[in-house]
């Protein structure tokens, strides 16, 4: 567990893993979307609108996966006081929020021609919107705590408590009658035809790589920020610089 607690050791891995994930993610996502958009036939009812699936589903899964990552990192932070866990949770929040937003936006665009409405307040849509707001709250809270130099424990507790929404999103279409359709891909199989399923799974893979790459990139940025601030503080304390110079 503490093998990667040392930021140097983390960076020595993150430095080469980040470009691999980002470039690999772009290639796989691009190929999957190109494949899906050009090769899969129109759906029997929805026509070409079905193809928004290739963005909507990965975005929804990663939006939920992002918060799951925040919750796990928060638990590690609270229990084991792992220094990188705090940074990982902060790094996952922004891409998670972006994917949650993409999920809501593409769902709305799909809903207008398919259902006949941009938005309804059913269980699935509402709980997903709540997830997006939780992300915004988490980002505001964790960044203000970091700026004030305070302990991130409150943000970690918020991350764990907020995770209760993730299984609610997942089960919302089972517990309540909803306009949103139930899950097509379950552990028991898939009710999505193969011509849509394969590009979809590759799109999920590609977007996941991108997500991982962005998280690593943001973790490196946050680490660099912390180091730069610490260095400035040391210099200011040593009195070798005037206050004005320290900000240059």
């Amino acid at each position, binding site marked *: 567990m503490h093998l990667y607690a040392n930021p140097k050791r983390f960076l020595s891995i993150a430095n080469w893993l980040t470009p691999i994930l980002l470039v690999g993610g772009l290639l796989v996502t691009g190929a999957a979307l190109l494949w899906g958009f050009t090769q899969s036939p129109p759906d029997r009812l929805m026509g070409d609108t079905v193809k928004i699936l290739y963005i909507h589903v990965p975005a929804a899964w990663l939006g939920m996966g992002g918060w799951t990552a925040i919750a796990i990192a928060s638990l590690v932070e609270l229990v084991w006081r792992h220094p990188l866990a705090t940074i990982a949770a902060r790094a996952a929040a922004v891409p998670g929020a972006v994917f949650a937003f993409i999920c809501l936006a593409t769902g709305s665009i799909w809903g207008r021609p398919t*259902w006949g409405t941009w938005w309804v307040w059913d269980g699935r849509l509402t709980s997903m919107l709540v997830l997006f707001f939780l992300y915004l709250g988490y980002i505001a809270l964790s960044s203000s705590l970091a700026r004030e130099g305070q302990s991130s424990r409150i943000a970690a507790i918020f991350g764990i408590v907020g995770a209760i929404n993730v299984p609610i999103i997942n089960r919302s279409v089972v517990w309540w009658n909803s306009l949103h359709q139930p899950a097509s891909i379950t552990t028991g199989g898939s009710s999505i035809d193969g011509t849509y399923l394969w590009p979809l799974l590759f799109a999920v893979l590609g977007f996941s790589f991108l997500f991982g790459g962005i998280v690593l990139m943001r973790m490196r940025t946050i680490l660099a920020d912390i180091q730069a601030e610490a260095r400035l503080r040391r210099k200011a304390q040593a009195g070798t610089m005037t206050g004005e110079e320290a900000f240059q």
Partner: protein
Amino acid sequence: MTQETSGGIKPKHQRLVLILLAVGALIGASLLAMVALQDQASYFYVPEDIEANPPEPGQAIRLGGMVETGSIQTAADGVTTEFVVHDGIARVPVTYTGILPDLFVENSGVVADGRMDANGVFVADQLLAKHDENYTPRELEEMTAEQMRAELQESVE
């Protein structure tokens, strides 16, 4: 709490137990809330609910279910559609005046906003088409049910 009071348990284990207890309590509370919300948080009622617990005429509700095969009829004025929504257990006749959504076809899901009238007919103000969890290309539509199942089965494996 210190290590002495907990009989030599490491602080990190103490924190882990504490957090797991808190998360357990949280999950319990949420499950209770979700069960309590069961009726209120549903987006629509199915015909079975309406039969078991008939709403007051004029009370705004949403009705959801499948459009019964062969039940769609267009009235003489050309814009009013009458059809039957069923859920395999009960059926409710519906009347709607307006433009139908593209996905409104026989034997597909529909959600209607409206109210029951005194004769037990549901008067809809708005119709939403409900899409099911199946995604099938157009060519498959012309197959028989068996062929389609075989094709879907193949794609699952």
